[in-house]
């Protein structure tokens, strides 16, 4: 685990999660993994506004945000070349076709599972 933790150290992560309890846990897990939590948005407009002004290395997107799909945020991140992963309580088949190749983290997830899902993203960002 040390290896993974090291590779995630300093990683600037942004998250979209609309359930406060889960968002709070995610934030703590990310901090424990050495990541810098740049922001956690609970709504799509907030998420879209925040990623405009932030330098981020990776993003974690809950698929279902207040009854809407998070895909607009995914598209905006893709345009900016920011790697991202999805997390969902739905089965992975609940992810729309164009995004199926992305990493999917099933809820509930452990810190280890989170670290393993983030690791491939950490190496991808052009600035890192």
């Amino acid at each position, binding site marked *: 685990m040390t290896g993974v933790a090291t590779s995630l150290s300093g990683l600037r992560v942004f998250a979209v999660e609309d359930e406060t309890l889960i968002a*709070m846990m995610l934030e703590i897990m990310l901090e424990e993994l050495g990541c810098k939590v740049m922001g956690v948005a609970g709504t799509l407009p907030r998420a879209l506004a925040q990623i405009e002004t932030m330098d981020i290395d990776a993003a974690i997107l809950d698929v279902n945000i207040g009854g809407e799909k998070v895909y607009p945020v995914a598209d905006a991140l893709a345009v900016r070349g920011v790697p991202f992963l999805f997390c969902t309580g*739905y089965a992975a088949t609940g992810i729309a076709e164009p995004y199926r190749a992305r990493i999917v983290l*099933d809820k509930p997830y452990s810190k280890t599972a989170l670290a393993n899902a983030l690791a491939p993203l950490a190496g991808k960002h052009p600035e890192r």
Partner: protein
Amino acid sequence: MTPPAALNTPRPPRVLIVDDEAANLTALRSTLSQHGYETEGFVDPAEALASIKRGAFDLLLADLMMPGMSGVDLMRAAQERDPDLVGVIMTGEGTIATAVEAMRTGALDYILKPLKLSVVLPVLSRALTVRSLRIENAELTRSVRERTAELEVARAEAKFRLAMDAARMGEIAVDLRSEQVVHTPAFAKLLGYPADRRLSLAEIRECWHPEDRALIIQERDAAIASGAVSFETEYRIVWPDGTTKWLTGRGQIIRDASGRAIEANVIYMDITERKWVEEKQNLLLAELNHRVKNTLAAVQSIALLSRLDAPTPELFGQRFEARLAALAGAHDLLTRASWEGASLADAVSRTLAPYVQAGDGAKRITIEGPMVQLSPNAAVTLHMAFHELATNAAKYGALSASEGKLDVRWSIDRTSTPAMVEFVWTERGGPTVAPPRRRGFGLKLIEQGLERELDGAATVRFDPEGVVCLLRLPASAKVAPL
């Protein structure tokens, strides 16, 4: 006198004459031939009998008294071979009684010897007429019986059609060589056409849903190639008005001796409604799965955050259990409303219910505000936030002292856009409040929940005279003032 022509037989009537006296026989044959009869004669009854087969003769004219076999016996045996054969017995005067007996056993008439032409011809003619009538009658009876059977088949068919119609089933037969199609009116209706519309195979294929077309063809070809005699299928069609429907079909493939498929008969049924229910059920299952997993994640979060917060394992255990109970309470609220959400008043009341019910709680606690509908997630978050406020109040605040008062009220500021729900939690009369040394789970939950999840703002003030919590929640789908 001309013999009557037998029905449907425009040939001369054929008479088999049996008389052991050869002279009589010859004379009679010759006479009858001259009057338009075709005759055959035997002196030996056994030989005569051997010559009889169905339809060979119309009439048997037999002498009563013959050696070896009487005319009556011959007639009976003959009629066994040909039931349509009519018999006439020739007899001398002394044996009229026997002749009468003969008639009882099946002879149609008798003629007294010596024969007189003026007697013989009318008797034969009448016998032949009776024969024709009997045959005609038998034919009519048979035809009536057949027609009745046909009607019964038609009635059974009609009943079957009615049942098919009632079950919204349509039937189609396709000649696989000529591609000719025969279908019931119900089939046209299944495809969205008027019942009297006759569809061609090309028109039927036009109805196939574009996305199912390849599968339909593949399944059909596979069924035909496999040598199967029956098959089942299920696919979508598109009605002329654009509606999509689901059909299920059970079919038979009729094959010739070499196994080549020559015809397909299929009964189709509309299962759109069943499909809809299935889809709805799958959606519900997916939704349930989602909620269970999210709830587990929430429990996981409560455990993690409570652990980080708690100074001792005992306190962790107490707080974790209390928060779990609060989460369960939030779910109870939602379940009562079929997970459509809950009202703000319900979320507050449920949290404070134990304190309202205890002692003079009802006097010390005021809950007041207009109807605000919360989405399921918002209800859970706010319920958990209120739980934290209430627990704090019960331990250190207004609810920990007998004279303490708690006032919870909210109003809607409709001057701003969007409208703003302004919520105030005011504690008074409790022990003097000191601000907490660190921001724990409860505070974080209130602030972050309001800000991130509900786009609102939360302020928790630890005034010495009591805790005040101000929440500003913009109206949205999650927080909807009525």
